[in-house]
């Protein structure tokens, strides 16, 4: 393990940029924290998150990672919300997927890393999505352990945080210590990460560094107030398809789709053809879809999930139950975004608890 100063953290960004990487990391825009192309890290920002509520706040320290999660996910860079897949011009197909720009994600949280690993399975196992694969291939991942948790986080329940799972694909793992005047404990998990670590330099971390990380992680675990009881959950949910609580949900849910758009594992999309009015070229465009839209379940002349009740039930039972059969684990990594960004504060942990109770 190495010990870095804030200057060395900046040196990492400079080095990556000099090597032609787009460094994507936290940036403050319009009163929230978004992941964007950056050349330095914002200093002293935190967030207040709760069901249906988000507020950016200034911290009285120098932390670079004092917030919990960006408003939107990293998936926007690997699986963009809008993408032209091919064009047709005068009857000929034109492949318009250019070689992607190399990216480095700086500040990936443990739950987000787990979500990237999940989307890797969705898009790079059979069948392979070539665009995703091309962007993912050279992606450099710099993860950050969580030195604080938001009230919406429940990663301990899903086993994805607050500490980075070293089994997952990541190049470097940072831990921010002493936010008043921060330093970073840095570990490399790949050769590429190791090379970067050596190039940036810094000192060997003291022998007590491991305990420092453990202590911080224990403190974060203490802060995790939300939980999702995953015990026998798939069978339970799939056995509760007629539970009256779905009707209660249908009274509150707006079927707006926000939860799915901010979820780092949701992968649904739809495609449309658009003709350019001037060149008359047809573009086949893919865009994010959601199981909360009517179009999502439109099949030859009719809609399968007509009611809001059945749409919410589709979302929850897929995410927490059928994912397990499909991908070997639940589709939820406990990031809490769907809770924060639901305009009417619907909380899947609370709803799941209600569905556990006998009707």
């Amino acid at each position, binding site marked *: 393990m190495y010990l870095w100063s804030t200057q060395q953290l900046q040196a990492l960004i400079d080095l990556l940029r000099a090597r032609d990487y787009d460094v994507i990391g936290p940036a403050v825009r319009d009163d929230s924290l978004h992941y964007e192309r950056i050349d330095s890290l914002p200093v002293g920002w935190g967030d207040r998150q709760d069901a*249906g509520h988000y507020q950016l706040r200034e911290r009285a320290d120098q932390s670079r990672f004092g917030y919990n999660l960006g408003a939107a996910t990293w998936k926007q860079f690997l699986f963009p*919300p809008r993408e032209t897949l091919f064009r047709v011009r005068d009857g000929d197909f034109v492949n318009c997927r250019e070689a992607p720009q190399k990216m480095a994600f700086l500040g990936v949280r443990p739950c987000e890393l787990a979500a990237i690993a999940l989307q890797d399975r969705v898009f790079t196992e059979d069948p392979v999505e070539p665009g995703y694969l091309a962007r993912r291939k050279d992606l450099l991942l710099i993860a950050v352990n969580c030195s604080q948790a938001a009230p919406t986080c429940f990663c301990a329940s899903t086993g994805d945080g607050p500490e980075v799972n070293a089994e997952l694909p990541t190049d470097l793992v940072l831990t921010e210590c002493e936010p008043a005047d921060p330093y970073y404990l840095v570990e490399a998990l790949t050769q590429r990460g190791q090379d970067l670590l050596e190039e940036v330099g810094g000192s060997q971390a003291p022998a007590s560094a491991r305990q420092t990380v453990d202590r911080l992680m224990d403190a974060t675990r203490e802060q995790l107030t939300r939980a999702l009881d995953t015990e026998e959950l798939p069978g339970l949910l799939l056995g509760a398809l007629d539970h009256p609580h779905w009707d209660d949900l249908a009274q509150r*849910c*707006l079927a707006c789709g926000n939860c799915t758009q901010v979820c780092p594992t949701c992968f649904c999309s739809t495609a449309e053809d658009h003709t350019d009015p*001037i060149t008359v070229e047809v573009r086949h465009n893919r865009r994010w879809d959601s199981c909360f839209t009517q179009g999502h379940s439109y099949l030859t002349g009719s809609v399968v999930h007509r009611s809001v009740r059945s749409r919410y039930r589709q979302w929850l039972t897929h995410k927490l139950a059928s994912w397990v059969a499909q991908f070997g684990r639940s589709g939820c990594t406990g990031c809490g975004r769907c809770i924060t960004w639901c305009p009417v504060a619907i909380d899947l942990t609370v709803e799941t608890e209600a569905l556990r109770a006998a009707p």
Partner: protein
Amino acid sequence: MASARLPTLAVFKFASCDGCQLSLLDCEEELLSIAQRLDIVNFPEASRRWEPGPYDIALVEGSITTIEDRQRISVVRKQSRVLVAIGACATAGGIQALRNSANVDAYARSVYPHPEYLSSLASSSPISAHVAVDYELHGCPIDKHQLLAVLLAFVEGRRPPIAQESVCMECKARGHSCVLVQGGEPCLGPITQAGCGALCPAYRRPCYGCFGVKEHARVEALMNHLQAHHGMGDDEVLRSLSTFNAGSELLIRIAERYRRPPPQDSEDS
């Protein structure tokens, strides 16, 4: 152009401000290209040419507010292969549908010196209340990209891509910060149909619903939350539901629940 007959396009206007038709004129460069693929036979905003029907595609702007309108729209329908209602007036009665929940005679008397010259229906209604409509484009005004997409899809024999989902879907795709979750602003995005590209949230303003209600709009569920958690009063709810799409049956029905009983003397004045 070659001698092959181009499909014909006609534009018709009912009670409206012409803003939606102007979206077609606004297309400028694209309009020239459209004109090579469609024969624009009637478009009073742009040309004096006026050809009799039948038409391959009709764009209908405006709501039905008079007996003559009602007769004319059924003629337009009979003459048109595909009828597209464009804008908040044609799809949801428009701002003039505010009278649907009021006393039209009282309005007329307070505005016109000789209300007896007026002859209008008691309500302003969307085109679909009178004839079959093939496609509806929401918005006050409509979005020109959606209009172009519909025309080009028609020329190419495709179903036009008109999403019926919420403005939130576009808002998130564009990476905007959410004015409702962050600022408690009464954003109508979750109940409003996409199409504008989440224009207002892009400028940190709450959506006021000019694109009308989306399919399965949960108006009351949103209002319940805004009232309970963001301090919205009955008057504000009523006002937010009574704008450009005031003739929407759903909005009228829900608005009634927030309306206070009218003062006794509302008949005279």
